């Protein structure tokens, strides 16, 4: 009996030890392979980093050269953008812009007269993130010719070459005080009320 117990006990120990050693060997083999891969990848990464650094240096030089060449254009672009879409409502500048237009186009034989100008409160423009809309309402009396000049003045706004504040007409109410419309008469007087929008960038400082 003792002999059988002794055989059993030592055999179990040896068996378990054998299993542990085999498992350890298998685990070590796999982990060693992984460790080797890591070490190799680390060495390769050093080469990659240097290669990317070389390309980065060259590309940075390209960028700097191009940026210097474009610097004047970029300044001009930034200026134009700030004119087309100013960083705030800037309605005083807008008022001066309108006055300039009406003064320039008002002539003895070809009248135009802005009798009223009213600004609303700016609000975010629908569907235009980062853009705000300033409502404007004005009453104008002028010739047919000046009326179409005014429409073109609004339609040409927002281009880089004119650098004029971006505007759009929301609605126009035209009335022909002298009876009815005479298309062929460029000097026919029209009373018109215009509801329009002047755009600007989302203000950085809220009121």
């Amino acid at each position: 009996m003792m002999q059988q117990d002794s055989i059993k006990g030592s055999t179990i120990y040896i068996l378990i030890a054998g299993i542990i050693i085999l498992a350890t060997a298998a685990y070590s083999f796999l982990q060693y392979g992984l460790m080797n891969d890591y070490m190799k990848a680390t060495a390769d990464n050093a080469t990659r980093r240097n290669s990317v650094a070389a390309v980065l240096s060259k590309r940075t030089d390209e960028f700097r050269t191009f940026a210097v060449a474009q610097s004047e254009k970029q300044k001009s672009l930034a200026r134009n953008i700030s004119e087309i879409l100013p960083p705030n409502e800037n309605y005083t500048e807008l008022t001066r812009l309108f006055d300039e237009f009406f003064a320039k186009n008002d002539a003895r034989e070809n009248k135009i007269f802005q009798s009223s100008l009213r600004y609303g409160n700016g609000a975010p423009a629908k569907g235009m993130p980062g853009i705000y809309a300033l409502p404007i309402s004005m009453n104008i009396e002028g010739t047919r010719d000046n009326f179409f000049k005014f429409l073109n003045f609004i339609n040409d706004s927002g281009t880089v070459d004119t650098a004029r504040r971006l505007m759009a007409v929301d609605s126009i109410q035209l009335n022909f005080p002298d009876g009815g419309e005479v298309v062929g008469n460029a000097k026919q007087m029209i009373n018109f009320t215009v509801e329009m929008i002047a755009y600007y960038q989302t203000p950085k400082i809220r009121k």
Partner: protein
Amino acid sequence: MDNEIKITPPVNGQTPNLPDSTDEVEEKKPETFSLGAGEKKQEGGILDRLLKKSPGAGTIAMAGENASKIPDLSEILKTPKQSSGSGSGPSISQLLGPQPLFNKAAFEEAYKKKLKICQNIFYGAILIAIIAFGFFYVQLNPQITILNDLFDKPNIASDFEHSNTEVKLKQTELNIVNYRLIRLLLDDLSLSIDPYVKVVHEMGDKDLSDENRATWTSLADAQVVQIRQRLKELQKYYRMPLSISLVERKVMTSEEVETQFHDLLKQQLVEQKQLLTQAKEPNPDEIRIVDNLIKLVDNAGLKTKILAARVDNMPHEDVVKLLSEIRAQGTDELSSVQKIKTARLDWARRIQDIHSIVRQADDLYGQGLFKDVGGFLFSSYRFDATTGRISISGVTKTANNKTFSYITKLIDAIEKSTEFKDIDFRSFTKTVEEQKDGRKTYSSGVNLEFAIQTGPDPRDEQVK
């Protein structure tokens, strides 16, 4: 032989006493093992059983001797030399050979030794396993920093992760420079668009003389060369992959890797913007540039549009259309401006369209002859961009009684046109006035409201 133990045969049925050992034998009353001695309880061993006749009986009957005489087994077991007898044949000991001797204590000790060795092997195996597991766990787990703390050297996994991170950061820096270049190229392209569009618009003027048209055309040709070059450069930088091939812990598809680098790029730019915004004196121009870069990185639609552009041998009008689409896809300020301009209605053109349509019903409209010949006279217009609707109010005057038919002619002309639709005028009233010369004139008020048509309308063909 020194350890030989003599066994006396049973006498008178008594169990044989195990003899004391000789001086040379270490144990003095050992519990010996003999053949078959596992059964201690049995009387005697195998030999005894072999020799045993019956309890108390004699043992081996020897030839020529008195049967009742119990022979001395020791005598039998002695070697021929030791044997007191002479010339009686081989003894059992000779036959059986040397008697195996079993020492229980020695066996136990041997067993314990063996067990101890096995246990040590077992513990050794566990120790080796712990060491192996511990070594690889410490080396291959990037969260373990004990090596770094003790020896100021990261483990292999940390080293690997760190080297991967370095490469990713370097690549992200390169991506930022690439996108800055793309942004500069797009801005340069933006600056070229408006003048080019204006030239192409002038070139398309039907009333232009051939000489002027040739001038505008050559100007457009010169401008489009630069535009083509810019587009090709844009395509070159957009084609550069954001990612770089790296060994990673987990398997990733190429799209996942590209997404990973895209997210890294965006994250870096967002951090840059935060730093610029939180600076003591934030520079709005720099913030705007970084903000535009972030939007550009996210703008997959613009990238697709530019990569798909093929401007070689494209007519100027198509180039203008492509550039407008590219600008509309953008997310910078000029792109927003472009979107607003595209949505803006050209009211001057709409008014001219109305005049053209009214002339289909009244060919003398707007000549100032209403008082004399009648027709249509509109005194007010209302245009609303929000609803996309137009109202015109006025009167109509006819020499005959078919004033309402005259109005329906205008209604049909408006509905049939491709510029307007959804006209709805259901209430007709008229008055009649007799002139001094007896002629009658019929007048009716006209208030027409209709919508701006933006796409094909099936009613354009139905109304004849």
